């Protein structure tokens, strides 16, 4: 059951990711990217992280992609594509294949290790994923969290300045 | 601010109550037209002929030029309209023909439902005008 769901979703995710890179029209790329994001949200649920899935949809699909689509709409890029590729298509293909190969090698012959924690499926189901995230974020990672919020503020100010009519 | 919003809402709510409906259920229920209503024309007839004597006042006065009259004489030597035709597509229902007629031979009825399927059906000849 789980395996079927995994392979199905993975296939959709990979195909739509390929379409993101290959579509002539940026709008189609954006639509495919949304599909990829939704597939990833499904994976997060399968990994017992429902909160991350909700955030994935809210932030990526609900905010970032809307912004991108909005910009495509504003700039009316539907027909603005002149040429699709640079000359480096061969090099890019080789590079990507290399990445894939190396990663594949490590995954196959290596083993995922790390500092083992106490968060098991039982802990998640009894304690709640949202609560765990909240605890980790506001106790262990409070300073990085505040820094991230300042980063967002700076980004907003920068975006406003950049997109203003007259500077 | 909220008082005004509430006032507006109360006005619409008041109209929601039964008895505030002003609709006339048209095809089922028809309004009585006023006596002066300027609808479809009618030629008035006496016992054996139409009252019209083909004096050509109505085609002359018509601002839309929609009336065609051809005069003829009958056996008794009286003038009568051999052709009396109103093109209802041109007619603007101004009522001048009624006003101009010295014989009171034409009048306007309260018929206003004149929809039809072909343009020819809007040429009202003498027979149709006498019957209407």
């Amino acid at each position, binding site marked *: 059951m789980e395996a079927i769901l*995994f392979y199905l979703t993975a296939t959709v995710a*990979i195909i739509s990711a390929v379409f993101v890179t290959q579509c002539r029209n940026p709008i189609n790329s954006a639509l495919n990217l949304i599909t990829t994001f939704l597939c990833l949200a499904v994976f997060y649920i399968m*990994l017992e992280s429902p909160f991350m899935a909700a955030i994935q949809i809210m932030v*990526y699909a609900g905010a970032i992609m809307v912004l991108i689509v909005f910009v495509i709409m504003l700039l009316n890029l539907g027909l603005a594509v002149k040429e699709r590729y640079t000359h*480096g298509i061969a090099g890019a293909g080789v590079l990507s294949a290399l990445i894939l190969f190396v990663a594949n090698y490590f995954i196959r012959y290596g083993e995922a290790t*790390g500092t083992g924690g106490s968060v098991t499926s039982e802990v998640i189901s009894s304690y709640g994923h949202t609560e765990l*995230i909240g605890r980790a974020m506001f106790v*262990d990672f409070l300073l990085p969290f505040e820094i991230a919020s300042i980063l967002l503020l700076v980004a907003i100010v920068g*975006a406003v300045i950049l997109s203003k009519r007259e500077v | 601010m909220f008082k005004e919003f509430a006032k507006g809402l109360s006005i619409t709510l008041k109209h929601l109550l039964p008895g505030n409906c002003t609709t006339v259920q048209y095809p089922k229920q028809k309004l009585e037209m006023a006596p002066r209503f300027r609808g479809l024309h009618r030629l008035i007839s006496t016992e054996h002929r139409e009252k019209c004597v083909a004096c050509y006042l109505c085609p002359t006065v018509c601002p839309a030029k929609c009336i065609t009259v051809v005069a003829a004489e009958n056996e008794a030597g009286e003038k009568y309209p051999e052709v009396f035709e109103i093109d209802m597509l041109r007619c603007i229902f101004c009522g001048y023909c009624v006003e101009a007629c010295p014989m009171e031979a034409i009048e306007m009825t309260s018929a206003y439902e004149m929809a039809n399927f072909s343009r020819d059906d809007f040429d009202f000849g003498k027979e149709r005008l006498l019957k209407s």
Partner: protein
Amino acid sequence: MITVNHYLLLSAILFAIGTFGVLTRKNAIVIFMCIEVMLNSVNLTFIALSRHVGNMDGQIFVFFVMTVAAAEAAVGLALMIAFFRNKESIDTDDFNMLKW
């Protein structure tokens, strides 16, 4: 049985696709979207490994990645709009002056 290796392989594939897109496309917005694919594949790795080792730290990192992605989206798209205003294009070939 789906193990963590499946997720890692999937995210490697997505990362490679994203890299390919970034390197080959000319349209800045499409490049931007390919970068998002790469970031998301990393997110998937983080969450899969976090579940594998039973530690929440990985998931917190996903939050920061999302923050960075949001900031990047805001600034990047603003840059594109500003650039489009001047050049009527967002092709990377036209990004060839050092100053605007």
